[in-house]
């Protein structure tokens, strides 16, 4: 164990630790200490080195004193660029930002926040994860946030994988990089299919209980606006007169309470297909301003409406485990 503590000052050791160990996400703010910033020349850097060597040979052969000066100046430039590139990345603070839920097949935008507490600007920080690259700058004493798009393929939680933060600033001859894995996950909803809303059921639950004011067909009156009401139902003219927002109420046969039930779907449907269908219905019902509830095996979301209700239903669908 003691050896481990000594070895942790070695970059190579840390590097192999990173490569060969199954690493867990790091919660909180990740500090890019110098021990986890690695640096190697790029392909262009190697070419540059070769060019400098050629120039040195030329200078020796032709006894060009100024050739030596130019060669050594370029060599110095290359060496100094190591420091600059390293400095551009080391001692940054990386923390997890927000990530909005997405549907499977869409792209989740993981927001990462870089905080630069140093006195100098950081430029051209590139983030790469699963072949996607984005870039950002972090001026001195400022935060910068960057959204890393990651394709969401499966429903459920999408954990952010290891992100490579690298930079080639200023000359592009060197590449400094570091691996971070902030503890970040995105909720991925099942992908809705293309089915229409289910036909009316005349059973005990949805029935003919025509509840006044909750349908969509006939105007039934006004009531004060609730935060969950669809903006399309706001009575703008009436609201202008009464100085409070009013919501139009409709009465109609469709103004029913819809229960989306796992068990009522056709028996031959696969679980994922059922989830997709249910997700579709939740979306459609919310779009039309209906009241709806969701029943899954072991889970029930009571009747409701509005954005928060929809999110809750979708979350249950996303995290459903048969």
């Amino acid at each position, binding site marked *: 164990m003691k050896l481990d503590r000594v070895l942790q000052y070695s970059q190579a050791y840390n590097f192999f630790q990173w490569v060969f160990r199954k690493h867990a996400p790091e919660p909180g703010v990740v500090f890019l200490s110098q021990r986890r910033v690695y640096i190697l020349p790029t392909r*262009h850097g190697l*070419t*540059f080195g070769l*060019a400098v060597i*050629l*120039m040195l*040979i*030329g*200078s*020796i*052969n*032709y*006894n*060009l*004193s*100024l*050739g*030596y*000066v*130019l*060669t*050594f*100046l*370029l*060599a*110095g*430039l290359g*060496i*100094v*660029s190591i*420091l*600059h590139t390293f*400095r551009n990345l*080391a*001692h940054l603070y990386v923390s997890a930002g927000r990530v909005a839920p997405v549907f499977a097949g869409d792209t989740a935008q993981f927001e990462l926040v870089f905080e630069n*507490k*140093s*006195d*100098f600007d950081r*430029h*051209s920080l590139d983030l790469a994860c699963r072949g996607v690259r984005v870039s950002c*700058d972090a001026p001195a*004493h400022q935060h910068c946030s960057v959204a890393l798009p990651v394709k969401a393929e499966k429903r459920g939680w999408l954990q952010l994988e290891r992100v490579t933060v690298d930079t*080639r*600033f*200023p*000359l*592009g001859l060197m590449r400094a990089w570091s691996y971070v894995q902030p503890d970040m996950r995105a909720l991925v909803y099942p992908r809705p299919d293309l089915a229409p809303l289910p036909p009316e059921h005349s059973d005990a639950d949805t029935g003919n209980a025509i509840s006044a004011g909750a349908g969509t067909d006939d105007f039934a009156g006004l009531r004060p606006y609730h935060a969950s009401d669809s903006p399309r139902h706001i009575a703008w003219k009436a609201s202008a007169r009464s100085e409070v927002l009013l919501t139009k109420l409709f009465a109609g046969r469709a103004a029913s309470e819809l229960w989306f039930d796992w068990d009522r779907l056709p028996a031959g449907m696969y679980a994922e297909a059922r989830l997709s269908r249910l997700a579709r219905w939740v979306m459609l019902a919310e779009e039309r301003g209906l009241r709806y509830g969701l029943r899954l095996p072991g889970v029930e979301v009571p009747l409701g409406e509005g954005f928060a209700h929809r999110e809750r239903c979708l979350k249950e669908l996303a995290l459903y485990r048969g």
Partner: protein
Amino acid sequence: MLIAGATLAVAPHTLWLPFWADFAATALLIWRAIVSIRAGALPRRWLLILLTFSGAIGVFFSYRTIMGRDPGVTLLVLLLFLKLLETRARRDIFVVAFLVYFVALANFFYSQSIPIAGLMLLTVLVTTTALVGFSAPLRPVVDDLKTAGRMLAQAGPVMLLLFFLFPRVQGPLWGMPQDAYSGVTGLSETMSPGSIRDLSLSDAIAFRVKFESDSPPRALLYWRGPVLSDFDGLAWRVGLPQLRRNMSIEAAGSPVDYEVTLEPHNRNWMFALEMPARIPPSARLTSEYLVISLTPIRSRIRYEMRSFPQFQAASGGNPEDLAMALRLPRGVNPRSLALASEWRESLADNSAIVRRAIEFFRGSRFEYTLQPPALGRNSVDEFLFDTKQGFCEHFASSFVFLMRAAGVPARVVTGYQGGDTNPVDGYMVVRQADAHAWAEVWLAGSGWTRVDPTAAAVPVRVELGITAAAPAGATLPLLMRTNLNWLKGLRNNWEALTNQWNQWVLGYNPDRQREMLSWLGVPQPSWQTMTVMLFWSVAGVLLLTALWLLRGIRREDTVQRAWLRFCDKLAREGLARARAEGPLDYADRVARVLPARENAVRAIASLYVDQRYGPGPDARSIARLTHLVREFAP
């Protein structure tokens, strides 16, 4: 930006590139500029390939080869501009930048002067700025320029260390291309009418001299060059110089020690004041008292010499040498031959003949001119008796002819006469315009004796220099004329600067490096010691640079640091703060345990909370907080 860098790097090349290549480079540059300004499309690949091939063919037709230095440089310049027209990907940017560096280096083949060095520094700055710009595309160019400037400034110390400590190897590593040394001026193995006159029109510097003590008087400053003993009636040529070990002189008077910095002239001879007594170890002395180097002098060299301005040169008088010094072409210059035989018959010995000849030159009214009339087959006769207008080469040539005709062994010596001391740095500068020719006669008893017929006929040439000797209105180099004093002062300063540049930058060779290291206290540096020194000094400089660069990387929060220090102090007393404990709760708890310290603890906690979470930080409160924490002892 990259286009600007490329233009700067190529600019000096336009002076020596073939005309068509200048034209093509300019056309390509304008094309590229138009593409940039109008955001137009770059030319198609097949067109570029076609252009590249035509460029290569053009080079081949200009130089009859595509190998070698000049064709290579021409090709490089064309390739650079063609590549500029093909900058599609990131890779191409780097290729162009590296090509710019190479072209910049190639400039030094032709000139290593201070202005060129400045221009190359600018080129590197601009190209580096371009590279910075490509790795941070959204920054303003001014910021890129600042970054590039800062990086170059930091690369400077590394460059200096490498320059002075990198183990130097004397090139060339392999055979140099034949065209590497074209276009150097200087004396040659032959002296035909007009050859020295051509040199006198050039104020290029032949060599510089640093005397250990005072310089000898101007009339003794004869810098010995090739000795010409073979005359065909028109031109003088060098004989067959032989290396002799037993050459000696008998010194009269005190020696002069000096150091010569010789400009490359692509010949073997090394100039020394007459007569050289101690020569540098790498040099040899010929039977004609000429110091020669074993290889042609193709780069500026520095050597130390000791000479005796007053001497008797008794060696080199072997019978075959003397026979050589008596040979004359047949059937030319009958009047001179008659005059010489008259002297021979009427005068007793050789030295009397020489004196008589000097009187002859002094008494006849010769005119010193840079535009002598053309002479025919009997050139000596025509000069001595008809035109009487000439230049040092006419005087020396006719004098030696007369001597040989009279039976006195004689030869022509070419070299330089005089030299101007630059008041700025004390170096004496000898220019091509100081080129001169004089005569030497063999006198039994005193050996080879210098006779300068020009000095006899036109004494002012030797006493005051060619400027005074040439008639007014002669086409001397502008700066050789005396009436432009401020211009001369300017030139003196510039040449002193150039000399320092030559001595320390351009002339920094393995010898100089050894000199400098022994001055630093490393007497016999091997390349291993040098490498070790280089490594550690570069590492040290880089460490300093790194510290400088990283100084602002960790902007510690003083408030936080003070608070943590406070917590540490308490933790050592067993009062560590719980993870989820707020500062004020913690202070409450500590105050209960340490009632004596309650005031301090509460003050620290409230200051910390104010400064950390309050609206704006306040320097005085922070100072008070750090003070309290420092004084705090649980």
